[in-house]
């Protein structure tokens, strides 16, 4: 196995973009190739993470459609899908190709264009990532699923509504400084707990938004990375785990075994432990998801994530800075793009060019969580 590095990366603004899916994808892909200073003819393969282009923009066979539009004809162009973890999966497939010596230069990207359909249609499309046959049929939505998680978690650990709201307050404070984020306005605890109810007890400001966006990265063997980039970032660990496809499959909804296992495997591969991680981009699709995952990833013991948050342990300067980019709650969540978007934020941190910089960050982690924990990808990057 060869060591693999990211030599170029780009992310579009996230939000309601007045651009077509091809324009959005092209902005990220062309930007990543420029950042890497790799000419298109050198790219040997293209892997695209995307959730539901067929429904959301009426375009299937979307990877070749994009590949052809960005000057990469003929090379294999393949879409991979795992709901909100589609971007992370794309990174992992690209990683494997380079690590195994099959390819030297692979472009990986994530894309979703969600605002071309109505919000109810987007919500309905999203639940197709759940066990549609049984649980999707009941009318359960993703806010509903995470509301059940919140309900179970609060029962078990006595966590209060205000404590959970603090996730949104922290992330929106960081997001206010991220020029690519969808929401750049700080919010207070009162704003969160008085916002519109979505699925009790979760409210609007507990939930990430429906967004458009794309992100892309160029991978190559580490041994030649410095010929292209002054600041390559090495992928030292990456793991993808299949978890459970619906709420009813969990013995206990207060944790997700796919996150736990993916983190363990990625850290073992990278030969690091949680104390070596300087910065973490975590899949905060809902406020409760950040508390739960901060425990599942191994940074805090089960039931103490909310307390750690209140103590500032997940802020810059704390034990583990979580989502200094603003996370999904601020940035928005273009489903297929999010995984690579998180990697973009970690790379900015490791290059020392992030808006909310963690001083001297050397090792970063990205946690990309799909559906009900059905897919989880954890990546560890090192400068």
């Amino acid at each position, binding site marked *: 196995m060869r060591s693999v590095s990211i030599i170029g990366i780009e992310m579009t603004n996230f939000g309601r973009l007045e651009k077509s899916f091809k324009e959005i994808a092209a902005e990220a892909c062309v930007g990543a190739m420029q950042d890497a200073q790799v000419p298109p003819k050198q790219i040997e393969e293209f892997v695209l993470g995307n959730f539901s282009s067929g429904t959301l923009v009426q375009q299937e066979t979307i990877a070749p459609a994009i590949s052809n539009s960005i000057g990469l004809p003929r090379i294999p162009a393949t879409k991979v899908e795992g709901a909100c973890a589609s971007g992370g999966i794309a990174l992992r497939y690209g990683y494997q190709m380079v690590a195994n010596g099959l390819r030297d230069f692979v472009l990986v990207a994530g894309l979703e264009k969600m605002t071309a359909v109505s919000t109810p*249609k987007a919500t309905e499309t999203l639940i197709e990532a759940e066990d549609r*046959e049984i649980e999707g049929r009941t*009318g*359960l939505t993703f806010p509903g699923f995470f*509301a059940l998680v919140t309900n179970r978690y609060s029962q078990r650990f006595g966590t209060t509504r205000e404590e959970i709201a603090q996730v949104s307050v922290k992330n929106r404070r960081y997001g206010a400084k991220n020029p690519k984020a969808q929401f750049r306005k700080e919010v207070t605890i009162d704003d969160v707990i008085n916002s519109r109810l979505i*699925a*009790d007890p979760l409210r609007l400001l507990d939930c990430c938004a429906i967004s458009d966006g794309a992100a892309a990265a160029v991978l190559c063997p580490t041994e030649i990375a410095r010929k292209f980039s002054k600041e390559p970032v090495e992928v030292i660990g990456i793991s993808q785990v299949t978890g459970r496809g619906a709420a009813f499959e969990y013995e206990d*909804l207060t944790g997700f075994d796919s996150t736990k296992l993916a983190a363990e495997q990625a850290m073992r591969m990278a030969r690091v432990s949680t104390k070596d991680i300087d910065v973490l981009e975590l899949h905060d699709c809902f406020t409760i998801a950040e508390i739960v995952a901060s425990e599942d990833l191994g940074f805090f013991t089960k039931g103490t994530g909310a307390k750690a948050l209140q103590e500032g342990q997940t802020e810059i300067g704390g034990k583990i800075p979580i989502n200094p980019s603003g996370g999904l709650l601020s940035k928005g969540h273009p489903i297929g793009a999010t995984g690579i978007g998180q990697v973009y934020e970690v790379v900015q941190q490791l290059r020392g060019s992030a808006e909310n910089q963690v001083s001297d960050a050397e090792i970063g982690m990205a946690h990309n969580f799909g559906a009900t924990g059905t897919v989880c990808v954890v990546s560890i990057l090192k400068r």
Partner: protein
Amino acid sequence: MAVSYWRERDRYYRILGSKCQNCSAEFFPPLYRCRKCGSDKLSDHEMPQEGQILAYTLLRDPMTGFEDHDPMPIALIELNNGVRIVAQLADTPIDQITVGSKVRAVFRRVRVNGPNGQIFYGYKFAIKNEKVNLTR
């Protein structure tokens, strides 16, 4: 959708799952290989129709086809055999829903005007009320 719904009707009408002939583990929805012991000897098995609420939420602005119920109560239920199921709650004032409430399955209209204009029926659950029998 109509054809697939018809194919799955036993699940939705009778909560038909599987039982492993080797280790007796029960599952819903049906499985094709036992998740506990790996055996492929599974038979159809109806789930018990009673259980209790483990967690619940009230969905606001429900999806297309569910607009009749706003808010729409939905719960994670543990059936009396330990199998879990997510279902809408019916026949129950929302202020009476609590974790730990005993519930029983009822047969109800689940979704109106699906993608092809059909009406889908199936299980929901109602909180058991000792004084008034809501189902019969």
